[in-house]
Structures are given as C-alpha cells and as structure tokens.
C-alpha cells in the first residue's frame, strides 16, 4: 500500500518537474532563436534554472523512495 502511494508521489513529482523543465527549455529555445549570439549565456542560465526545478522534484523522489522503505 505505502509502495503504491510512494509510486504515485514519484509520478506526481515527475509531472511537476516535466512541466517546469519543459517551460525552461522552451523559453530558452525561443530566446536562442531570437538572439543566437546570446546562446551560450542562455544555455548556462537554462541549466541552472533547470537544476533548481529538478532539485525540488528530486526531493519528492527521495521522499517517495524513503516512503517505499
């Protein structure tokens, strides 16, 4: 039972991270298309922002793993 709930939690975390990172990636693409010369800077900033988004969902995954026991 707890295992299934943990799996649902992990799935929800994946949805959140997917939405967040998708938005970051999409906006970065747009930015790069508009200003190809700024691509390097955008890429770095994108990775950092993605890392922050990812961290939150990874917290959730770790909690789900612990809950799975």
């Amino acid at each position: 039972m707890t295992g299934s709930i943990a799996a649902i939690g992990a799935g929800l975390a994946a949805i959140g991270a997917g939405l967040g990172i998708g938005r970051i990636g999409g906006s970065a693409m747009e930015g790069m298309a508009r200003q190809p010369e700024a691509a390097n800077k955008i890429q770095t900033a994108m990775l950092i922002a993605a890392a922050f988004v990812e961290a939150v969902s990874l917290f959730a995954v770790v909690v789900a793993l612990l809950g799975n026991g």
Partner: protein
Amino acid sequence: MSRITTRFSTRNVLLSSLFALAFLVVNTRAIAQHETKHEHSTGAEHIKAEVEHLDSTIVEEAEHIGEAAIGHHETKEEKFNTSEVIMEHIADGHDWHLWGHTSIHLPVILYTDKGIEMFSSGKFNHGHDAYIGTHHTYKLEHDKVKVLIADGQIDEAASASVLDFSITKNVASMMVSMVFLCLIFFSVASSYKKRGIGAPKGLQSWLEPIIIFVRDEIARPNLGEKYAKFMPYLLTVFFFIWMNNVLGLVPFFPGGANVTGNIAVTLVLALATFIITILNGTKTYWSHVFTPHVPLWLYPLMIPVEIIGLFTKPFALMIRLFANITAGHILVLSLVCLIFIFKSMAVATVSVPFVVFISVIEMLVAFIQAFIFTILSALYIGMALEKPSEDAHH
C-alpha cells in the same frame, strides 16, 4: 592562460585525496558488538595473519550464490525481486563483484571498543558465514557488519560503539578514480613544466579547454576578480564528480560503484562548499542574514528564514547530485531487470538498446551534474563575497 593549468593541477589532485579521507570518516557505519570473548592465541599475531589475507584477494568461489545478483537469478528463486537486486547494486558493499562468481574481497577494518580489527571480507562468504575475530564474532547483515552473541543472535544494542572504517566498494572505487586523476593531472602538469606555455599537446589539449571552461564559464562570472583563489576547489569538485560519475557508468570492474550516488560522498562535497561559503562571508553577506532590509517587525520571521537559507543551499547540492546519479543507476538497472522479470531473452532486444540509449544520456548527465555542482558552488561562494558598494543600491 595555460599557466593556470600548471599551477592548479597538482593542488587539485591533493584536494581530491583530502575529500576521500573526509569520506572515509563519514562512511563510518554503526555496527553491533557484544560481550562474549573468543579465545585466540595472541591478538597481535592474529591480526598480522589477517593483514596478509587482507589485500584484496581475488577468490574463485564455490557453489555459493549471492543473494540477489542478477546473474544468479535462474538458480532457485521463484520470484525475482527487482527492488532488492537494484538496491544491492546501487548500495555500497564489502565485495567488489567482477564476473560470474568472482569478486574482489575488500578489507574490513573495524574500530571496536577493544581495539582495531582487520580481516578480509571473504571470510563472510557473501554474508553466509560468521567470522570469529579477535574481539567479537561478526556477520554481514544487509551488507552491514553486525556483532553476534554466542547463540547467533545479532546484538543491536552495542552497535553504536563499533565503527566500520572498511575499504568498501565506494572507497575502493574512489581510490581508483583518484589514481586516474593523479595520472592525468601529473602528466599534464609535467608536460607544462617541460614544454612551457605554448600550444598544448596530447592530454593537454583535452584538459586545457575544460579548465578554461571552468574558469571562464563558472568561476569568473560568479566570483568576479577574486576567482583565482577558488579555482583549485572548483576544479577539484568538477573533475572529482565528473570522474566518479563516469566511472559509475562503466558496468565492469574499475567502475560500477555508485560513488557520487552515495549520500555520504555528496554530503562531504556539499559540506566543503558550505564551509568555504561560511569562511569567506563578508560583512555585507552576514548583514543580509542578521539585519535584512525589511521592517523591524518582520525580523523574527526573516532572520530564521535567512539562517535556514544558509543550510538549504548545501543541502540541495547534496540531494541533487545524490538523487540524479542514483536515479540514473536505478533506471539502467530496471531496464536490465526487465529481462529477468519477463524471463525471456527476447526482451533483451528491446531493453539492451534502451540501456545503451539511457547510458548515453547519462554520460551527458554525468557532465551536467558535475557542471551544476561546480557552478552552484561558485554561485554560493560568490554570494558570500558580496561587496558593500552593491549594497547601497538596494
């Protein structure tokens, strides 16, 4: 430009060995002990005999089957326990599995209340046998050394007083990666010494762009003109994490351990960043923490928040690296496990290409995580270096 490479590379290597030492300390695991004494000739002689055994002896094993290793699945177990197999593979261990029934038995070093005890983990026979040491009887329980009482029961109560300083799989793997780093960096450093500053050659031309990348993309934008002081640390964490990430992806012997996916390792790395941040904090940085620019009545709320904020940053660094690398390992292992879940070789035609695909992505992740850890460390240190002149604008 290239002089920077020469100057930092040796220090870089030294710092990484420091990390390993720190890890050894963190890796102590509470294990059990008990009161019964076992008769043995002289303790010193016994230990000497053990030390001879201790050097990782490669042993061909008899018919004994490891509890859940993938290759051994077909024998008797009716139900294939996926999570057990995966957890065993990503966890730290006292044996380093090579192939089939062959593994390296790494030394077990225990600090007990009665003295240090050293013996080969081969004595445990993959957790099947108990080992009668000089001071206690030991047995592996879920890859943790436990002390047995006379009747074969585990003495949990005394667990806290025996510390496990063993060279585990993770420690051994970290030593391997340090040897690699040493070889690479000392050879590059010496070729800079020999050839001076000029067009790089051989290994130099592989390393120099990466070091320049760390300097120009990570250190300078975040740390300002004081970047040189922190370059040794940033290069160390970058190459240490990267090397261990990549070694973790190698499925056979020199790799295969889950070093950066071990929370103790990432804890030490994050702790290093935390300590550097704290030590380099300027007056302005601390004034943001203890006298934030908010109305006075908000202070009871804001100061605790700011203090918690000091700790959440390294905490997030720790969790991010740990969870990313562990998730990658779990992903690859689950895909391999599909073959055993369906009990059919045909599944391999799907799952093996998928494993290759994920492994290629993980190569990218290995680099990105090293980069993210380093750039966030630089960012946090850069925040601590804040100067008062900027403060006037707010």
